[in-house]
């Protein structure tokens, strides 16, 4: 498997705080990679560095072998690299169906291509993905009226609508009803296996990430602490110490 995303020695400072210190990690084509670490360890900052929200202070980010560290978020998204947020971001005053329609790949085209109605095929695909996310009956509701968990699912469906090559998910199960979490894991696996979307997932729920990810990277204090298969990371004493505050 070839590397789809390569983060090389990325450093990001906010004033005196070094949020990412020489972080390197690789996400291979077709895998589900996990990113864990205690609160404040720099996971979400790293997502920002990869997707162009933050300008990196050092290092490089390569997507499909090409440096994207200097690009803004929109051009990066058009290359096929999307993210979701820990606090959901959906278009609150628009209906779920409209949220899906404007998330389609064609919507990234130039002005002229936007001056037409939403194609029927796009609308059908949006409906199918809403059904996949279990939101079909909400399709006419405003996205802002959904519960937090439903908004997470909608945001996930919107990302799939865009057919990304790589999708970064920031805590997909946070705020989701525990009885629905297994369903969500199945959906993430389905997106990975059937739709061919490579995933990089930040997750605090250890049961979820150990089940889901093929490989896990653990951050602490902005640095990579450990890396390996779920079993290796789980049994790494440094990881346990970072979480539980050992010596």
């Amino acid at each position: 498997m070839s590397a789809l995303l390569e983060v090389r020695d990325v450093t990001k400072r906010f004033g005196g705080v070094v949020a990412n210190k020489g972080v390197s990690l690789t996400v291979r084509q077709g895998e589900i990679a996990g990113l864990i670490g205690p609160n404040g360890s720099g996971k979400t900052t790293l997502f920002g560095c990869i997707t162009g929200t933050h300008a990196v202070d050092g290092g490089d980010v390569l997507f499909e072998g090409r440096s994207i560290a200097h690009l803004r978020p929109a051009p990066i998204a058009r290359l096929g690299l999307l993210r979701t947020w820990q606090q959901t971001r959906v278009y609150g005053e628009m209906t779920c169906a409209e949220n899906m329609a404007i998330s389609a790949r064609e919507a990234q085209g130039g002005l002229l291509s936007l001056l037409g109605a939403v194609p029927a095929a796009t609308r059908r695909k949006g409906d199918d993905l809403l059904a996949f996310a279990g939101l079909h009956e909400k399709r006419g509701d405003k996205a802002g009226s959904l519960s937090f968990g439903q908004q997470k699912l909608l945001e996930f469906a919107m990302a799939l609508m865009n057919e990304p090559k790589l999708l970064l998910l920031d805590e997909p199960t946070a705020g989701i009803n525990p009885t629905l979490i297994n369903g969500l894991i199945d959906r993430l696996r389905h997106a990975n296996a059937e739709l061919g979307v490579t995933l990089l997932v930040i997750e605090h729920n250890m049961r979820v990430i150990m089940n889901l990810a093929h490989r896990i990277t653990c951050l602490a204090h902005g640095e990579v602490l450990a890396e390996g298969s779920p079993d290796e990371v789980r049994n790494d004493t440094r990881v346990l110490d970072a979480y539980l505050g050992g010596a």
Partner: protein
Amino acid sequence: MSRISDWHIMGALALAGIAGPLLLPGLATQIAFLWLMVVFALTWDMLGGRMGYNSFGNIVFFGIGCYAAAVVQRDAGLPYFEGLALGLLVGAAAAVLAAIVFGAAMLGIRGHYFAIGTLGLGIAAGEIAAGWDYVGAGSGMTLPLYPGELGAREIFFCYSLFALAALCFLVFRRLYGTRFGLALNAIRDDHDKADAMGLRTTPIKIFAWSLSAFFLALSGGLAANMIGFIDPRDVAFAGATFGVWMVLMAILGGKGTLWGPVLGAFVFHVTQEVFWTYLLGWQRVALGLLIVVIVVFFPQGIMGWWAARRTRAVS
């Protein structure tokens, strides 16, 4: 009850627009101003309501339209209607160009900062016009006399402003049904998300402002000719009256809705005329009170209040 569709309302308005000046020739000027207000509210709403960019500087494009028409009609040496037509075209082109330049510079600013920035734009334009001798400086410009007989002028501008308002409404209505319309809403609801989903937000925003500018400039050229005189601060770049009314009308009717701006323009204009007629001397106070009532009791506008009432009735 059979459902009333957009087409029923549009048909009724078209009838009123055509028959109005014929049945009530004495009110032709008031009716013409009503259509002007509709253009004001619709063009403001494209940014303020649909895209979430509250502009207090749209009056600039109206003023550019006023002055472009006046200068062309003064200097081109054409007969009245040819001069007017050329003046409108030049004004529209100049306003679109201005929207592209200002848009590229200012549409990157968000929220309150954009509102304040555009407020400065409107004031600056008025001051520049008031100090520029080529356009008459502080004493303004006089437009050429309408060639027709007495009363024909009011009827002419009443119909041309009606046609402009109708065209503006139909074009906007069509655009809001496209992906462009959805993209505007997406920018309003979460700009960062729209960027992160790869939308080309900058050209979308500039195009929206250019469209507003286009219709505002045409309305400016027509209004200047109807009024017959442009003062830099009180007519062309009248930020404290026209500029604020644009915002008020869109909010009163319900911003971001199809009919809200039209309804807001009707209610506002009629109320204002009534105040002028029956509360002379107190009309500004009454207008101020009306604004307070709008903001306190109808923050979502008439359409928003109506929609909320209907949802309550259903549930």
